């Protein structure tokens, strides 16, 4: 029995001094299994979404606790859940799935602040963090804390409320889990926060709209410092203001599937590719020791290629934040 299995992994006279799994027919079989498996899993996830599909262990309570834990570690007061911000986050997540975009501003120009206003939250300061493709709350918070602009949102003293939405759906042609975190305050903040990247553009754009439209409480402050993560409410009608539907406020309301297809395929692929690296390495060692001469490809080439594959699978399946 052991010899039978070793036949697949170790070069031996019974397998012509080349592990059985490295023979052409075995490689072809693995390729066919992967292609067939991909179609089968795709079919099952569509026909039986309660059995197989994208799911996560992300919960609003975990996100809130972890956010407040990070704030406590930095000597900041905790944020409290505001139902209106959670409604806004839910509306934003639904809009991202409906209009198929992964950005702070929708293709139609709808800003996060529109969702917050639509939810009835008259903010003085507001901010938004987005994440997708994560499977647990800790990874989401870690990714936000690793990004300077998101970290500033989490650790900003300008906010006293927060709202979350965790929703699964199809975005850019793939099933994924979206996490929307909306920050806000309705009273004067104790300090200011700085931001960078896309958020800065949002603030600058908002500052322009202030000048064009309504005078507000502190326009000079906002216009003079575009790095402030400050959103002052505009008291005019906004044609891009979305209507918030549904009430999935405190997280995903869908029943999660029994098997997470994303984790299943990722882990299977990593196991198979790692096994091939192991087999090729063993083959290399045995052939060197036994001084066997064969007309085959270079194992080092294949090991390097498979190593790249492992890194790419990890990169392709990791979560993203913006």
């Amino acid at each position, binding site marked *: 029995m052991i010899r039978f299995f070793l036949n697949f992994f170790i070069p031996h006279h019974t397998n012509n001094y080349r592990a059985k799994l490295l023979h*052409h027919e075995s490689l072809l079989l693995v*390729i066919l299994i992967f292609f067939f498996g991909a179609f089968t899993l*795709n079919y099952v996830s569509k026909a039986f979404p309660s059995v197989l599909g*994208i799911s996560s262990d992300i919960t609003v309570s975990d996100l809130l606790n972890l956010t407040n834990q990070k704030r406590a570690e930095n000597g900041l007061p905790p944020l409290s859940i505001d139902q209106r911000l959670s409604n806004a986050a839910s509306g934003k997540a639904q809009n991202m799935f409906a209009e198929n975009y992964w950005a702070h501003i929708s293709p139609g120009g709808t800003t996060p602040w529109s969702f917050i206003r639509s939810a009835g939250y008259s903010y003085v300061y507001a901010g938004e963090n987005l994440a997708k493709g994560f499977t647990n709350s800790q990874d989401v918070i870690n990714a936000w804390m690793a990004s300077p602009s998101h970290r500033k949102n989490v650790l900003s003293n300008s906010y006293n409320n927060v709202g979350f939405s965790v929703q699964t759906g199809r975005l850019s042609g793939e099933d994924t889990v979206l996490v929307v975190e909306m920050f806000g305050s309705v009273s004067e903040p104790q300090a200011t926060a700085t931001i960078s990247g896309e958020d800065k553009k949002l603030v600058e754009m908002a500052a322009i709209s202030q000048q064009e439209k309504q005078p507000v409480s502190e326009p000079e402050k906002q216009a003079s410092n575009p790095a402030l993560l400050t959103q002052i409410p505009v008291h005019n009608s906004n044609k891009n203001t979305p209507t918030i539907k549904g009430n999935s406020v405190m997280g995903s309301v869908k029943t999660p599937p029994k098997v997470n297809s994303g984790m299943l395929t990722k882990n299977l692929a990593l196991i198979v590719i790692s096994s091939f690296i192991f087999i090729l390495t063993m083959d290399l060692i045995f052939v060197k020791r036994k001084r066997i001469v064969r007309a085959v*490809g270079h194992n080092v080439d294949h090991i390097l290629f498979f190593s790249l594959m492992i*890194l*790419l699978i990890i990169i392709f399946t990791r979560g993203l934040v913006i």
Partner: protein
Amino acid sequence: MYKKIQNHLGYYISLIAMLALSLLLAILASGNKDLQITIFILTAIFYVIWGILHHLLNHDLTSKIVIEYVLIGALGISTIFFVFMGGKGV
């Protein structure tokens, strides 16, 4: 083995450079699934061509070796296909 690697140092440097470039491009294409898949397929094709050329220049190319590189490249593509289509419903 070390002597063998030394003799093929130029080939391996070019292979590692190509794989590193592929990794960098995949990181830069984060969030763009189609581009990431395209980058990987091009890398796999380049790998097969590189492997065949390597053996051709070393005068030890056989049809069996060509098939082996093609199968390894196809295995890479099928694995990525499995991860995306099976796991994410692409």
